[in-house]
Protein backbone atom coordinates (compact mmCIF):
# COMPACT_ATOMS: atom_id res chain seq x y z
CA UNK A 1 0.00 0.00 0.00
CA UNK A 2 2.83 2.35 0.90
CA UNK A 3 4.52 1.58 -2.43
CA UNK A 4 1.35 2.39 -4.32
CA UNK A 5 1.01 5.69 -2.50
CA UNK A 6 4.66 6.50 -3.17
CA UNK A 7 4.24 5.79 -6.87
CA UNK A 8 1.12 7.94 -7.01
CA UNK A 9 2.85 10.81 -5.22
CA UNK A 10 5.86 10.58 -7.52
CA UNK A 11 3.71 10.50 -10.60
CA UNK A 12 1.73 13.55 -9.39
CA UNK A 13 4.97 15.39 -8.65
CA UNK A 14 6.35 14.46 -12.06
CA UNK A 15 3.16 15.58 -13.74
CA UNK A 16 3.13 18.86 -11.82
CA UNK A 17 6.78 19.43 -12.67
CA UNK A 18 6.14 18.73 -16.34
CA UNK A 19 3.25 21.20 -16.55
CA UNK A 20 5.03 23.75 -14.37
CA UNK A 21 7.62 23.94 -17.11
CA UNK A 22 4.93 24.00 -19.81
CA UNK A 23 2.99 26.73 -21.53
CA UNK A 24 -0.34 28.42 -21.03
CA UNK A 25 -2.20 29.45 -24.17
CA UNK A 26 -4.99 32.00 -23.98
CA UNK A 27 -7.09 31.87 -27.10
CA UNK A 28 -9.76 34.26 -28.19
CA UNK A 29 -12.62 32.42 -29.85
CA UNK A 30 -15.71 33.91 -31.45
CA UNK A 31 -19.13 32.28 -31.43
CA UNK A 32 -19.07 30.89 -27.91
CA UNK A 33 -22.52 31.53 -26.56
CA UNK A 34 -23.75 28.64 -24.44
CA UNK A 35 -22.48 25.89 -22.13
CA UNK A 36 -23.01 23.32 -24.83
CA UNK A 37 -20.24 25.04 -26.79
CA UNK A 38 -17.58 24.12 -24.26
CA UNK A 39 -17.78 20.35 -24.40
CA UNK A 40 -16.85 19.91 -28.06
CA UNK A 41 -13.91 22.28 -27.67
CA UNK A 42 -12.62 20.54 -24.56
CA UNK A 43 -12.96 17.16 -26.22
CA UNK A 44 -10.98 18.19 -29.26
CA UNK A 45 -8.27 19.88 -27.19
CA UNK A 46 -7.93 16.90 -24.87
CA UNK A 47 -7.25 14.73 -27.90
CA UNK A 48 -3.93 16.58 -28.31
CA UNK A 49 -1.13 14.84 -26.44
CA UNK A 50 0.34 16.96 -23.66
CA UNK A 51 -2.74 19.11 -23.11
CA UNK A 52 -3.52 19.50 -19.41
CA UNK A 53 -5.96 21.92 -17.85
CA UNK A 54 -8.56 23.55 -20.06
CA UNK A 55 -10.65 26.51 -18.95
CA UNK A 56 -13.39 27.97 -21.08
CA UNK A 57 -14.76 31.38 -20.20
CA UNK A 58 -17.95 31.98 -22.16
CA UNK A 59 -18.43 35.55 -21.04
CA UNK A 60 -14.90 36.56 -22.08
CA UNK A 61 -14.83 34.35 -25.20
CA UNK A 62 -11.61 32.83 -23.94
CA UNK A 63 -10.20 29.33 -23.99
CA UNK A 64 -7.18 28.84 -21.73
CA UNK A 65 -5.10 25.70 -22.22
CA UNK A 66 -2.09 24.45 -20.30
CA UNK A 67 0.27 22.16 -22.17
CA UNK A 68 3.23 20.15 -20.98
CA UNK A 69 6.83 21.13 -21.61
CA UNK A 70 7.84 20.45 -25.20
CA UNK A 71 4.28 20.70 -26.54
CA UNK A 72 3.28 23.61 -28.73
CA UNK A 73 -0.07 24.67 -30.13
CA UNK A 74 0.08 26.40 -33.47
CA UNK A 75 -2.28 28.93 -35.02
CA UNK A 76 -3.16 26.80 -38.08
CA UNK A 77 -3.82 23.85 -35.80
CA UNK A 78 -6.14 25.91 -33.61
CA UNK A 79 -7.91 27.45 -36.58
CA UNK A 80 -8.79 23.99 -37.84
CA UNK A 81 -9.67 22.68 -34.41
CA UNK A 82 -12.12 25.48 -33.64
CA UNK A 83 -13.56 25.40 -37.12
CA UNK A 84 -14.27 21.69 -36.69
CA UNK A 85 -15.90 22.42 -33.34
CA UNK A 86 -18.11 25.02 -34.99
CA UNK A 87 -16.40 28.26 -33.92
CA UNK A 88 -13.98 30.86 -35.18
CA UNK A 89 -10.47 31.11 -33.79
CA UNK A 90 -9.21 34.72 -33.60
CA UNK A 91 -5.89 34.94 -31.76
CA UNK A 92 -3.78 33.58 -28.96
CA UNK A 93 -1.13 34.59 -26.48
CA UNK A 94 1.18 32.25 -24.68
CA UNK A 95 3.18 32.38 -21.52
CA UNK A 96 5.43 30.00 -19.70
CA UNK A 97 3.79 28.33 -16.73
CA UNK A 98 6.89 29.09 -14.69
CA UNK A 99 6.04 32.76 -15.08
CA UNK A 100 7.84 34.14 -18.15
CA UNK A 101 5.89 35.57 -21.10
CA UNK A 102 6.64 33.91 -24.42
CA UNK A 103 4.40 35.80 -26.76
CA UNK A 104 1.94 38.55 -26.03
Amino acid at each position, binding site marked *: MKKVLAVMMLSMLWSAATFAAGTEYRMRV*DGLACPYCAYGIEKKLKAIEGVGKIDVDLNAGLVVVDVAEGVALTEPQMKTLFQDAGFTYRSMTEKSLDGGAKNE
Partner: protein
Amino acid sequence: MNRYGGYHVLCDFFTIPVLIAGSVVMGAGSAWSAPITFNTALPVAKNEFLVREQFIINRSSDDPTNLNRDRTAKAAVSVLGYGVNGKLALFGVLPYRDNELKLTVAGQRIKRSASGFGDLTVFGRYTVVQRDQPGRNFRIAPFVGIKAPTGDDDKRDAMGVLPPSVQVGSGSWDPLVGVVSTYQTLDYQIDGQISYQINNKANDFEAGDVARLDGSLQYRLWPRTLGGGVPAFFYGVIEANLIHQQKNQVNGQSNSDSGGTRLFLTPGIQYVTRRWIAETAIQVPVVQNLNGDALENDYIARVSVRFNF
Protein backbone atom coordinates in the same frame (compact mmCIF):
# COMPACT_ATOMS: atom_id res chain seq x y z
CA MET B 1 -49.48 6.44 -46.95
CA ASN B 2 -51.36 4.11 -44.68
CA ARG B 3 -54.18 1.81 -45.34
CA TYR B 4 -57.53 3.19 -44.49
CA GLY B 5 -59.61 0.00 -44.82
CA GLY B 6 -63.35 0.64 -44.65
CA TYR B 7 -63.06 3.75 -42.52
CA HIS B 8 -62.79 6.45 -45.11
CA VAL B 9 -64.12 8.97 -42.67
CA LEU B 10 -61.08 8.41 -40.51
CA CYS B 11 -58.61 9.36 -43.17
CA ASP B 12 -58.51 12.93 -41.96
CA PHE B 13 -56.84 11.61 -38.81
CA PHE B 14 -53.74 11.12 -40.83
CA THR B 15 -53.16 14.79 -40.54
CA ILE B 16 -52.04 14.31 -36.97
CA PRO B 17 -49.28 11.74 -37.40
CA VAL B 18 -48.01 13.69 -40.36
CA LEU B 19 -47.86 16.76 -38.20
CA ILE B 20 -46.07 14.84 -35.49
CA ALA B 21 -43.63 13.36 -37.96
CA GLY B 22 -43.05 16.74 -39.48
CA SER B 23 -42.62 18.33 -36.12
CA VAL B 24 -40.21 15.66 -35.05
CA VAL B 25 -38.09 16.01 -38.12
CA MET B 26 -38.17 19.72 -38.10
CA GLY B 27 -37.59 19.42 -34.48
CA ALA B 28 -33.58 19.50 -35.64
CA GLY B 29 -25.25 24.83 -36.91
CA SER B 30 -22.76 23.86 -34.50
CA ALA B 31 -22.98 25.10 -30.99
CA TRP B 32 -26.20 26.05 -29.45
CA SER B 33 -29.07 24.84 -27.38
CA ALA B 34 -31.65 24.44 -30.15
CA PRO B 35 -35.45 24.51 -30.28
CA ILE B 36 -37.65 21.87 -28.70
CA THR B 37 -40.23 21.36 -31.41
CA PHE B 38 -37.88 20.88 -34.35
CA ASN B 39 -34.65 18.96 -34.87
CA THR B 40 -33.08 20.70 -37.83
CA ALA B 41 -31.16 23.23 -35.68
CA LEU B 42 -29.47 20.64 -33.49
CA PRO B 43 -25.75 21.41 -33.14
CA VAL B 44 -23.16 18.73 -33.79
CA ALA B 45 -19.43 19.25 -34.36
CA LYS B 46 -17.11 17.36 -36.70
CA ASN B 47 -16.66 13.68 -35.84
CA GLU B 48 -19.05 13.96 -32.94
CA PHE B 49 -22.39 12.42 -32.25
CA LEU B 50 -25.48 13.82 -30.68
CA VAL B 51 -28.47 11.92 -29.33
CA ARG B 52 -31.83 13.39 -28.52
CA GLU B 53 -34.55 11.27 -27.01
CA GLN B 54 -37.91 12.93 -27.04
CA PHE B 55 -41.20 11.72 -25.59
CA ILE B 56 -44.31 13.15 -27.15
CA ILE B 57 -47.98 12.91 -26.31
CA ASN B 58 -50.43 14.25 -28.83
CA ARG B 59 -54.06 14.44 -27.74
CA SER B 60 -57.02 15.14 -29.99
CA SER B 61 -60.54 14.78 -28.70
CA ASP B 62 -62.73 17.68 -29.75
CA ASP B 63 -64.62 15.86 -32.46
CA PRO B 64 -67.43 17.80 -34.20
CA THR B 65 -68.98 14.57 -35.51
CA ASN B 66 -71.11 11.87 -33.91
CA LEU B 67 -68.16 9.51 -34.05
CA ASN B 68 -66.86 11.27 -30.95
CA ARG B 69 -63.31 10.46 -31.94
CA ASP B 70 -60.66 10.55 -29.27
CA ARG B 71 -57.09 10.00 -30.34
CA THR B 72 -53.93 9.69 -28.30
CA ALA B 73 -50.63 9.33 -30.09
CA LYS B 74 -47.57 8.66 -27.94
CA ALA B 75 -44.10 8.54 -29.39
CA ALA B 76 -40.56 8.03 -28.18
CA VAL B 77 -38.47 9.68 -30.84
CA SER B 78 -34.76 8.93 -31.11
CA VAL B 79 -32.61 11.42 -32.99
CA LEU B 80 -29.00 10.65 -33.87
CA GLY B 81 -26.80 13.36 -35.37
CA TYR B 82 -23.27 13.10 -36.73
CA GLY B 83 -20.94 15.89 -37.79
CA VAL B 84 -19.25 14.94 -41.06
CA ASN B 85 -17.29 18.18 -40.94
CA GLY B 86 -17.72 21.68 -39.62
CA LYS B 87 -20.44 22.40 -42.19
CA LEU B 88 -22.22 19.15 -42.95
CA ALA B 89 -24.24 17.21 -40.42
CA LEU B 90 -26.34 14.09 -40.94
CA PHE B 91 -29.33 13.11 -38.87
CA GLY B 92 -31.58 10.10 -38.43
CA VAL B 93 -34.93 10.29 -36.68
CA LEU B 94 -36.71 7.10 -35.65
CA PRO B 95 -39.95 7.15 -33.66
CA TYR B 96 -41.46 4.36 -31.65
CA ARG B 97 -45.18 4.97 -31.76
CA ASP B 98 -48.16 3.96 -29.72
CA ASN B 99 -51.36 5.16 -31.33
CA GLU B 100 -54.83 4.75 -29.96
CA LEU B 101 -58.16 5.82 -31.41
CA LYS B 102 -61.50 5.58 -29.66
CA LEU B 103 -64.70 6.24 -31.52
CA THR B 104 -68.38 5.49 -31.52
CA VAL B 105 -69.66 3.23 -34.30
CA ALA B 106 -73.27 2.06 -34.41
CA GLY B 107 -73.79 3.22 -30.81
CA GLN B 108 -70.82 1.28 -29.52
CA ARG B 109 -67.55 2.67 -28.25
CA ILE B 110 -64.63 0.94 -29.90
CA LYS B 111 -60.91 1.25 -29.56
CA ARG B 112 -58.32 0.68 -32.24
CA SER B 113 -54.62 0.83 -31.57
CA ALA B 114 -51.19 -0.02 -32.88
CA SER B 115 -47.64 0.31 -31.68
CA GLY B 116 -44.19 -0.21 -33.11
CA PHE B 117 -41.32 1.58 -34.81
CA GLY B 118 -42.50 4.21 -37.25
CA ASP B 119 -40.93 5.69 -40.34
CA LEU B 120 -37.24 6.58 -40.33
CA THR B 121 -36.38 10.08 -41.51
CA VAL B 122 -32.86 10.91 -42.60
CA PHE B 123 -31.67 14.36 -43.54
CA GLY B 124 -28.51 16.30 -44.15
CA ARG B 125 -27.89 19.91 -43.21
CA TYR B 126 -25.18 22.11 -44.73
CA THR B 127 -24.19 25.42 -43.15
CA VAL B 128 -23.82 28.00 -45.90
CA VAL B 129 -23.50 31.08 -43.73
CA GLN B 130 -21.54 31.22 -40.48
CA ARG B 131 -20.81 34.51 -38.73
CA ASP B 132 -19.11 34.34 -35.36
CA GLN B 133 -18.49 37.30 -33.09
CA PRO B 134 -17.52 37.52 -29.43
CA GLY B 135 -20.35 35.90 -27.47
CA ARG B 136 -22.64 35.46 -30.43
CA ASN B 137 -23.08 33.55 -33.66
CA PHE B 138 -25.34 33.37 -36.68
CA ARG B 139 -25.98 30.46 -39.03
CA ILE B 140 -28.04 29.69 -42.10
CA ALA B 141 -28.28 26.08 -43.18
CA PRO B 142 -30.47 24.44 -45.79
CA PHE B 143 -31.41 20.83 -45.30
CA VAL B 144 -32.84 18.04 -47.39
CA GLY B 145 -34.04 14.61 -46.42
CA ILE B 146 -36.47 11.80 -46.91
CA LYS B 147 -38.85 9.83 -44.80
CA ALA B 148 -38.56 6.12 -45.51
CA PRO B 149 -41.47 3.72 -45.04
CA THR B 150 -39.84 1.61 -42.34
CA GLY B 151 -42.89 1.44 -40.09
CA ASP B 152 -45.73 -1.01 -40.57
CA ASP B 153 -48.49 0.47 -42.65
CA ASP B 154 -50.74 -2.58 -42.80
CA LYS B 155 -51.42 -3.42 -39.18
CA ARG B 156 -54.78 -5.02 -38.45
CA ASP B 157 -57.06 -5.74 -35.57
CA ALA B 158 -60.22 -7.81 -35.23
CA MET B 159 -62.08 -5.23 -37.35
CA GLY B 160 -59.65 -5.34 -40.23
CA VAL B 161 -56.89 -3.09 -41.50
CA LEU B 162 -56.36 -0.10 -39.22
CA PRO B 163 -56.99 3.40 -40.55
CA PRO B 164 -54.02 5.61 -41.45
CA SER B 165 -54.38 7.59 -38.23
CA VAL B 166 -53.63 4.49 -36.21
CA GLN B 167 -50.90 2.92 -38.34
CA VAL B 168 -47.34 3.51 -37.13
CA GLY B 169 -45.92 3.83 -40.64
CA SER B 170 -47.02 5.58 -43.80
CA GLY B 171 -45.89 3.20 -46.55
CA SER B 172 -44.51 5.99 -48.69
CA TRP B 173 -41.20 7.70 -49.43
CA ASP B 174 -41.63 11.36 -48.62
CA PRO B 175 -38.92 13.93 -49.41
CA LEU B 176 -38.52 17.10 -47.42
CA VAL B 177 -36.57 20.29 -47.91
CA GLY B 178 -36.08 23.45 -45.92
CA VAL B 179 -33.77 26.01 -44.44
CA VAL B 180 -32.98 26.74 -40.81
CA SER B 181 -31.34 29.75 -39.27
CA THR B 182 -30.01 30.48 -35.78
CA TYR B 183 -28.90 33.66 -34.06
CA GLN B 184 -27.44 33.11 -30.62
CA THR B 185 -26.03 35.40 -28.00
CA LEU B 186 -25.05 34.74 -24.41
CA ASP B 187 -28.46 36.04 -23.33
CA TYR B 188 -30.83 34.51 -25.84
CA GLN B 189 -31.18 32.46 -29.00
CA ILE B 190 -33.56 32.74 -31.92
CA ASP B 191 -34.15 29.93 -34.41
CA GLY B 192 -36.36 29.94 -37.45
CA GLN B 193 -37.05 27.45 -40.14
CA ILE B 194 -39.22 26.99 -43.17
CA SER B 195 -39.80 23.57 -44.66
CA TYR B 196 -41.87 21.56 -47.08
CA GLN B 197 -42.58 17.86 -47.09
CA ILE B 198 -44.02 16.12 -50.13
CA ASN B 199 -46.17 13.19 -49.09
CA ASN B 200 -46.55 10.45 -51.67
CA LYS B 201 -49.14 7.81 -52.26
CA ALA B 202 -49.18 4.38 -50.71
CA ASN B 203 -52.07 1.97 -50.41
CA ASP B 204 -54.36 4.26 -52.41
CA PHE B 205 -53.89 6.95 -49.78
CA GLU B 206 -51.85 10.12 -50.14
CA ALA B 207 -51.54 12.49 -47.21
CA GLY B 208 -51.47 16.16 -48.08
CA ASP B 209 -48.11 17.86 -48.40
CA VAL B 210 -47.01 19.78 -45.31
CA ALA B 211 -45.56 23.29 -45.26
CA ARG B 212 -44.19 24.63 -41.99
CA LEU B 213 -42.90 27.86 -40.56
CA ASP B 214 -41.35 27.49 -37.11
CA GLY B 215 -39.77 29.94 -34.73
CA SER B 216 -38.13 29.58 -31.34
CA LEU B 217 -36.88 32.03 -28.72
CA GLN B 218 -34.77 30.75 -25.84
CA TYR B 219 -34.04 33.38 -23.18
CA ARG B 220 -31.56 32.84 -20.37
CA LEU B 221 -33.36 33.12 -17.05
CA TRP B 222 -30.52 31.85 -14.87
CA PRO B 223 -27.85 32.79 -14.08
CA ARG B 224 -29.06 36.37 -14.43
CA THR B 225 -25.49 37.67 -14.50
CA LEU B 226 -22.73 35.77 -16.18
CA GLY B 227 -19.48 35.30 -14.32
CA GLY B 228 -16.50 33.36 -15.58
CA GLY B 229 -16.25 29.75 -16.61
CA VAL B 230 -19.06 27.66 -18.04
CA PRO B 231 -22.13 27.73 -15.82
CA ALA B 232 -25.23 25.74 -16.70
CA PHE B 233 -27.95 27.85 -18.30
CA PHE B 234 -31.65 27.74 -17.56
CA TYR B 235 -33.69 29.03 -20.47
CA GLY B 236 -37.30 30.01 -20.77
CA VAL B 237 -38.55 29.02 -24.21
CA ILE B 238 -41.38 30.17 -26.44
CA GLU B 239 -41.90 28.63 -29.83
CA ALA B 240 -44.46 29.01 -32.59
CA ASN B 241 -45.33 26.47 -35.24
CA LEU B 242 -47.43 27.40 -38.25
CA ILE B 243 -48.36 24.26 -40.15
CA HIS B 244 -50.38 23.97 -43.29
CA GLN B 245 -51.35 20.66 -44.78
CA GLN B 246 -53.09 20.04 -48.05
CA LYS B 247 -56.05 17.73 -48.27
CA ASN B 248 -55.47 14.01 -48.31
CA GLN B 249 -56.23 11.98 -51.40
CA VAL B 250 -58.14 8.74 -51.02
CA ASN B 251 -58.38 6.61 -54.15
CA GLY B 252 -57.51 9.69 -56.14
CA GLN B 253 -60.29 11.73 -54.56
CA SER B 254 -59.64 14.71 -52.38
CA ASN B 255 -60.87 14.21 -48.81
CA SER B 256 -62.72 17.35 -47.79
CA ASP B 257 -62.42 16.42 -44.12
CA SER B 258 -58.66 16.67 -44.05
CA GLY B 259 -55.91 19.24 -44.11
CA GLY B 260 -55.93 22.83 -43.04
CA THR B 261 -53.82 25.27 -41.08
CA ARG B 262 -52.75 25.14 -37.46
CA LEU B 263 -50.80 27.56 -35.33
CA PHE B 264 -49.29 26.34 -32.10
CA LEU B 265 -47.75 28.48 -29.38
CA THR B 266 -45.31 26.51 -27.32
CA PRO B 267 -44.04 27.59 -23.92
CA GLY B 268 -41.22 25.52 -22.48
CA ILE B 269 -38.11 25.37 -20.34
CA GLN B 270 -34.63 24.13 -21.05
CA TYR B 271 -31.68 23.30 -18.78
CA VAL B 272 -28.38 23.36 -20.66
CA THR B 273 -25.07 21.98 -19.40
CA ARG B 274 -21.83 21.10 -21.21
CA ARG B 275 -22.80 17.52 -21.90
CA TRP B 276 -26.54 17.30 -21.73
CA ILE B 277 -29.75 19.23 -22.09
CA ALA B 278 -33.13 18.52 -20.52
CA GLU B 279 -36.21 20.28 -21.81
CA THR B 280 -39.95 20.23 -21.87
CA ALA B 281 -42.62 22.13 -23.75
CA ILE B 282 -46.29 22.01 -24.52
CA GLN B 283 -47.70 22.92 -27.91
CA VAL B 284 -51.00 24.69 -27.50
CA PRO B 285 -53.11 25.18 -30.62
CA VAL B 286 -54.22 28.80 -30.89
CA VAL B 287 -55.57 28.63 -34.44
CA GLN B 288 -56.99 25.55 -36.10
CA ASN B 289 -58.51 26.39 -39.41
CA LEU B 290 -59.17 22.89 -40.59
CA ASN B 291 -61.18 21.55 -43.49
CA GLY B 292 -64.51 19.85 -42.89
CA ASP B 293 -64.59 17.58 -39.89
CA ALA B 294 -60.86 17.17 -39.52
CA LEU B 295 -60.01 16.43 -35.91
CA GLU B 296 -58.47 19.27 -33.92
CA ASN B 297 -55.49 18.95 -31.58
CA ASP B 298 -55.95 19.46 -27.84
CA TYR B 299 -52.24 19.75 -27.12
CA ILE B 300 -48.86 18.18 -27.86
CA ALA B 301 -46.57 17.70 -24.85
CA ARG B 302 -42.85 17.07 -25.20
CA VAL B 303 -40.12 16.04 -22.79
CA SER B 304 -36.63 15.37 -24.04
CA VAL B 305 -32.99 14.88 -23.13
CA ARG B 306 -29.96 15.38 -25.31
CA PHE B 307 -26.34 14.26 -25.06
CA ASN B 308 -23.16 15.02 -26.92
CA PHE B 309 -20.59 12.27 -27.14
